[in-house]
């Protein structure tokens, strides 16, 4: 099976695979996770605000995003972002958006829906006495959220947020559908150029597997460490 397996093809491609491909994947994952959590928290706050209209809009957004395949959402934003940019800047033609910016916007908007559900569960798990005590102390709604509720919700949900980030890391490989060279895209480009798809895809699978395994092991350790605090 490995008789004509060419390890050298992998070795030669390593700099490109990691410095270009993996750097893209990891940057995209990290920035999307941060952006997704910030937007997700805002959406969760909208849903829990008690304002009917705000809650409705946020709920519809979350339901819509969660009903659609990520591939379709990637296509949507890939074509929509230039028009949104044109509308925002008032340009006369749809603006040019780079591969990275386009996929970053897509993943922030898409993952925000999933992160918002996690943050909503986190906020709802805080006992009512906490915001009540905060407002008794004279804290405004914003202050009570910022200093009392959100830090606790965030801490309780940290393992779940990180697990979702691992899923996000795996999902970034789907930018392949709009030919953006992330890690998998880079492996695919090299594999097609050299006629060595078998080696490149097996290597890519191994790398994704290792990173996800190590990361989920880390999350489990973290969960065990922070679970007892109470």
């Amino acid at each position, binding site marked *: *099976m490995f008789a004509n397996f060419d390890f050298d093809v992998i070795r030669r491609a390593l700099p490109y695979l990691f410095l270009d491909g993996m750097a893209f994947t990891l940057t995209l994952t990290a920035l999307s996770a941060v952006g997704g959590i910030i937007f997700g928290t805002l959406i969760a706050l909208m849903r829990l605000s008690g304002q009917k209209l705000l809650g409705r809009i946020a709920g519809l957004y979350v339901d*819509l995003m969660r*009903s*659609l*395949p*990520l*591939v*379709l959402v990637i*296509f*949507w934003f890939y*074509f*929509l972002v230039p*028009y949104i940019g*044109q*509308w925002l800047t008032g340009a006369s*033609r*749809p603006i040019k958006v780079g591969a990275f910016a386009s996929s970053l916007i897509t993943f922030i908007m898409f993952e925000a829906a999933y992160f918002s559900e996690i943050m909503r569960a986190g906020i709802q798990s805080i006992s009512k006495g906490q915001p009540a005590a905060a407002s008794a102390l004279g804290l405004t709604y914003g202050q009570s959220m910022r200093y009392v509720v959100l830090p606790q919700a965030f801490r309780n949900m940290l393992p779940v947020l990180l697990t979702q980030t691992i899923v996000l890391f*795996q*999902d970034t*490989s*789907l930018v*392949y*559908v709009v030919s953006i060279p992330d890690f*998998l895209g880079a492996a*695919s480009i090299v594999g097609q150029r050299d006629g060595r*798809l*078998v080696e490149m*895809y*097996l290597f*890519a*699978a191994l790398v*994704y*597997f290792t990173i*996800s*395994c190590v990361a*989920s092991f880390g999350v489990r350790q973290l969960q065990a460490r922070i679970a007892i605090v109470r």
Partner: protein
Amino acid sequence: MNYHWNWHIFFEPNPTGGGSYLDMLLSGLLLTLETSLAAWIIALVTGSIIGVMRTLPSKPANLIGFSYVEFFRNMPLLVQLFLWFFVLPEVLPSAWGLWLKQLPHAPFYTAAIGIGLFMSARVAEQLRAGIGSLPRGQKQAATALGLTTAQAYLYVLLPIAYRIILPPLTSEFLNTIKNTAVAITIGLLELTGQARSMQEFSFQVFEAYTAATVMYLLINVVVVTAMRVIESRVAIPGMIAGK
């Protein structure tokens, strides 16, 4: 916005010669449903076996179940599909590889099996959690009545466990449907794939994706409604879900 909307595009003939653009999308919708059903059957069967193995009082069975779940959970679905589609025929003995490559509807089978196995790891985890949530007395009572382990699972544990995990299984089924869109990368012309080719043929980007979006939303509504009905019909009296 200087985008030219043309909602009549759906009734114009598509360049592949098979009716209108709407027919194209509908054939994609049908393929999405077929692929997800095939994948879901594979996921349920394999996932159930692995899920049960993880709850058995046997170290080797546990280890196999654990490795299986970790293997399929820690790789992106896209990579798994590529492994099945591009790598498997090459690493098999050449006669088998050739047979695989010449197989008609290869993207469909690859997608059904690839997505099915990917989802089976998730089904296994749900089922393990479901069995784990049952009181220990259930298994003990079954054993005391003289049931073998297989009988205890078949007649006592699984019938309750499946009903407990119906809601999470519903969302896993919805995930299966959404995941079929990934098969666009191996050339399966399911709903997203057909919307993509409609966009490429007609340049009506947003109409094509709007139609696909509406169809996915409809599938969701239908599945969720159907599952609600099933859930209430199989609910166990006396439990929170029951009456």
